[in-house]
């Protein structure tokens, strides 16, 4: 069942939560809504679920216009950020709720609930109450409860937000495997880009009630549509240069401009990710920046080095592979030469 959102806007008083949002989720896809707090991602999810009504715009499931249908009639599985388990019901009754209100036969309810508890590996917990479960277990109960009604689409609001790092990692992979098994059109909200990239087929990056970019994780990461997206997707170094001789220039570095036309002398912003900077011991005649090593954090899969240039008053974050780091043998206070391998150039129309 595909989801199509067209021109949806929503205000809360004077706060614009959604500003003319359109989004397509093809059948069977797992899409992540990624954005900072207040970007409207949860509101969009709630509008898709029917828990919130849009001021304008339409929501379609497949070819059916469901804009005016209540959440009750939409038959969606919704997993709440903090699970919203029914506190006075045990695990079994929580999962059975959707079936009980549909007046299913007791035997069918029993069979279906046990099947789902097996799926989320909580068979032995059916008599427990939510307060007696860990965060990860609650999350799985919430998921089983949402799946019990055989929903057409599955919507998850920050599904791993309240869990600790290790459980989160496990549940992410588990959710991805589950999705591959049942192939239900799913949308989940997250503010964690790593989570979005790891789990989803496609990512929709949101800001201030708008969808800034939709694409496969790699596409969004490598070809960010604008400054917000590149800024939001992890650490980045920014240089403020100008257009000179038809190229973007900052100090002695020059880069090609994007397709759009630019006036000579216009200001441009150059974005360079930490792993796109190269460190050398000597200048070697190439355009490079003379810097001093300020801090080194080599605990992790990559070595993070912070260098500064007194001359230009900038501080840069550089990421090196462990091999390269060992080869260079860097220490605090060393003088090194930094050069960017590539940069993304944006014009300041996209001022954030």
């Amino acid at each position: 069942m595909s989801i199509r959102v067209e021109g949806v806007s929503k205000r809360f008083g004077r706060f614009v939560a959604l500003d003319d949002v359109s989004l397509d989720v093809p059948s069977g896809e797992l899409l992540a809504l990624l954005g900072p707090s207040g970007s409207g991602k949860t509101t969009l999810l709630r509008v898709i679920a029917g828990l919130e009504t849009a001021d304008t715009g339409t929501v379609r499931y497949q070819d059916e216009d469901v804009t005016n249908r209540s959440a009750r009639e939409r038959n969606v599985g919704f997993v709440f950020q903090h699970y919203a388990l029914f506190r006075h019901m045990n695990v079994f009754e929580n999962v059975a709720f959707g079936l009980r209100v549909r007046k299913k036969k007791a035997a069918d309810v029993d069979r279906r609930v046990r099947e789902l508890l097996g799926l989320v590996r909580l068979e032995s917990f059916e008599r427990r109450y939510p307060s007696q479960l860990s965060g990860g277990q609650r999350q799985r109960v919430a998921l089983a409860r949402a799946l019990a009604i055989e929903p057409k689409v599955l919507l998850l609001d920050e599904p791993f937000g309240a869990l600790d790092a290790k459980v989160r990692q496990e549940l992410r992979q588990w959710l991805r495997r589950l999705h591959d098994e049942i192939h239900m059109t799913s949308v989940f909200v997250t503010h964690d880009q790593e989570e979005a990239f790891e789990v989803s087929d496609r990512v929709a990056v949101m800001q201030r009630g708008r969808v800034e970019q939709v694409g496969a994780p790699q596409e969004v990461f490598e070809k960010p549509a604008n400054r917000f997206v590149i800024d939001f997707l992890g650490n980045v170094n920014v240089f403020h240069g100008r257009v000179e001789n038809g190229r973007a220039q900052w100090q002695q570095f020059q880069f090609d401009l994007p397709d759009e036309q630019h006036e000579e002398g216009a200001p441009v912003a150059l974005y360079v990710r930490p792993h796109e900077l190269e460190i050398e011991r000597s200048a070697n005649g190439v355009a490079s920046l003379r810097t001093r090593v300020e801090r080194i954090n080599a605990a992790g899969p990559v070595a993070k080095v912070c260098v500064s240039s007194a001359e230009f008053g900038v501080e840069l974050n550089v990421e090196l592979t462990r091999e390269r780091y060992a080869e260079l043998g860097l220490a605090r206070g060393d003088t090194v030469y930094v050069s960017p391998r590539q940069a993304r150039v944006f014009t300041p129309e996209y001022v954030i």
Partner: protein
Amino acid sequence: MADRAAKSTRAASGRDPALVRWTLITATLAIVGVLVVVPVVAVFHKAFEQGPAIYWQTLVADADTRHAILLTLTVAPLAVLSNVVFGVVAAWTIARFRFPGRALLTALIDLPFSVSPVVAGLALVLIFGLQGYLGTWLRAHDIKVIFALPGLVLATTFVTLPFVARELIPLLEALGPDEELAAVSLGANGWQLFHRLTLVNIRWGLLYGVILSAARATGEFGAVYVVSGHISGRTDTMPLRVEKLFQEYNTPGSFALASLLTSFALVSLALKGWLERKTRRELADAASAQNFLLEGAVGQPSPAAVTA
């Protein structure tokens, strides 16, 4: 912040000389003793002065007293029932919806706490009395409100109006709308939502409100005094009967009935204490869940209303 405050209180209490502490404790005990314990004991002592047999006879022999007990046992439950309906509806409305006038409505619900019951009674007479705004219409349709059961129920409901709503508003607010939204997304209709979920979640708070309003309704005097017309054997409730017997120098009868009224109060006090512990735990659970939620979603617009 709170931690520091707690520490300074502890430090302060540590610094207070024993003399100050014991003076204050003694004074408090003395005041409670003189104003609360002694009168209650005295009521029972006076009532049972001539033995349990006489006590029992005094209560049941007098037809008017019997009627007063029966009337109170009719009026109080009816008032409590209307409070339950109103309280749940009002609390739900205030806790779940944001609308203009919401703050005013919340304040108005508290009004009966501050208005003198006599004034409330007079207001009812002004509306429903023979010379009142609705007097002519009521007479034309042969409906008696003032000096009759409906008036008693109305007056009692008015004075007990805040109890249930006051108890439920913070509880519903602490519980938050998420469980209800989850139930809606799972296909529950309004009634299923209410009786399978909300009612179960608020049951102890509701019962607490019921006990408070029952206790208040049973003892109500001022408003009822005005609207009842004070007719023996017809519109005298227990408190009114106690006063009348006392005025007629029937001290044993008056105290026997007063002791029964006091017993009701003591029973509700015990129930209240037991429930208080239960609801406090419930509220704490709900509040901790809520804090958790707030931590996670800083800056998100709050989903204001249940859109079902």
